[in-house]
């Protein structure tokens, strides 16, 4: 990135301002729309500023994994569609897309908000696989938080299709949804220079030194984390970033409830 822009960004930070006028720990406008597409069993569209993503859920019935015969499971995929940014290319998922998908997956899985046993149809034989795909429509920064928020919102809106005589009838949705015991929310805190910000836009993302994605529950318990970026963090950095992450998660959680 252009060093002058970086210097300018940091200079602004020192007076608690950002390129677009926001405060350091202020999100752009966040909009969550449930049931964004009718073909999915559950879906949500999340816009954070100009960042625009859709999460959709399809369900499949399959055999359980041998090590957990009475548990269903979830799968998360993220598509960095070349439609959404000049930086994305067609082809197999990039490392970035895989990292993103795995962080969203872990935020949900490790929170234990979803009882995988409730996805069992017949022990040892049939379970529900809940597949969450997040597609990026426009990448204007902070895909982590947008994708995670869309995924959990889609889960909340999901309704099982009818399953009868070993067949799924996708045309018939039941009124049975998923029971979510909590709403894990991911917040990605970014370190640039010696300042911390949330919800970095595309320009700020080019300047990051380190990022920490923090997934937390409504009582503030942490359930997943991921550090990224080329620079290391100190203990104090981590404490500060976790604190910001938990605090901001409270704001985002209200939008899904």
């Amino acid at each position, binding site marked *: 990135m252009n060093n002058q822009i970086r210097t300018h960004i940091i200079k602004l930070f020192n007076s608690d301002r950002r390129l677009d006028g926001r405060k350091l720990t202020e999100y752009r406008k966040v909009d969550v729309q449930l049931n964004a*597409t*009718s073909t999915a*069993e559950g879906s949500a569209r999340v816009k954070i500023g100009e960042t625009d993503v*859709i999460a959709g859920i399809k369900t499949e019935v399959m055999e359980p994994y041998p090590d957990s015969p009475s548990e269903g499971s979830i799968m998360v995929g993220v598509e960095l569609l070349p*439609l959404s940014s000049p930086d994305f290319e067609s082809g197999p998922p990039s490392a970035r897309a895989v990292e993103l998908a795995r962080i969203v997956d872990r935020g949900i899985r490790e929170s234990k908000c979803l009882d995988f046993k409730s996805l069992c149809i017949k022990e040892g034989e049939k379970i529900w696989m809940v*597949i969450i*795909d997040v597609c990026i*429509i*426009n990448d*204007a920064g902070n895909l982590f938080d947008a994708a995670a928020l869309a995924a959990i919102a889609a889960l909340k809106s999901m309704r099982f299709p009818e399953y009868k005589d070993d067949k799924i009838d996708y045309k018939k949705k039941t009124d049975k949804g998923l029971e979510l015991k909590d709403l894990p929310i991911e917040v990605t805190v970014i370190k640039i220079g010696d300042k911390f910000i949330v919800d970095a836009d595309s320009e700020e993302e080019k300047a990051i030194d380190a990022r920490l994605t923090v997934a937390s529950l409504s009582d503030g318990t942490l359930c997943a984390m991921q550090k990224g970026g080329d620079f290391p963090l100190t203990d104090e950095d981590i404490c500060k970033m976790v604190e910001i992450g938990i605090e901001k998660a409270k704001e985002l959680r209200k939008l899904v409830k």
Partner: protein
Amino acid sequence: MAYKERLNGRKFDETRKIEAKAGVIPRADGSAMFKIGNTWAYAAVYGPRNLHPKFLQDPSKGILRCNYNMMPFSSSGDRVRPGSSRRSKEISLVTEKALLPILDLSEYPNSVVDVFIEFPQTEAGSRCAGICAAAMALADAGLAMKDLVAAVSVGRVDDKLVVDLDYNEESYEEGPVADIPIAMSPNYGKVTLLQMDGLISKEQLKKVIEMGKKACKDIYEVQKKALKDRYKI
């Protein structure tokens, strides 16, 4: 038995409800959304930009590259596996051919114009919706064009000729069905995409293409209005 009334209650020459909007993806050089009934397409244009690998470059003009892709949750049936399929490759190719005649890329040697078409939800007629969105996105990108391209599927359900078949009509079982996606350049009246699956006589074909042309003219008006709204003309 005759097909007396359409299963969906529409008139035989009536399309589903159409919505269109230009400039929906800020990162793209041009973009548009086109929705017809439950089929919903987004198109984004990137370019003209450098083309790699180099051997694909044409020193006399720019090339057009289209990519049709269904989002994994966009089908009302099973999940669509991410990545390209034989079907999506073919549709990408015919989409390219449907759009190319109205584009002038002679000013952009060795470059590519990429068009990405994505569907959050589909219910029949997706390639036509994709072409409508793509044509608008190309115009939104400010590329030199002779005309827009509008597309719709026409066909036959039993003894009737119909415009814009939906899923139930495509899978009608009490009589023969033909599904004919067409695209045209509305101002020249020329057809740029023509495919057909099913059975039809040549007399019926002639008639149904006429019906399709009329529908395309109406669709063209919607596309044009969306583009004008975008630039407040």
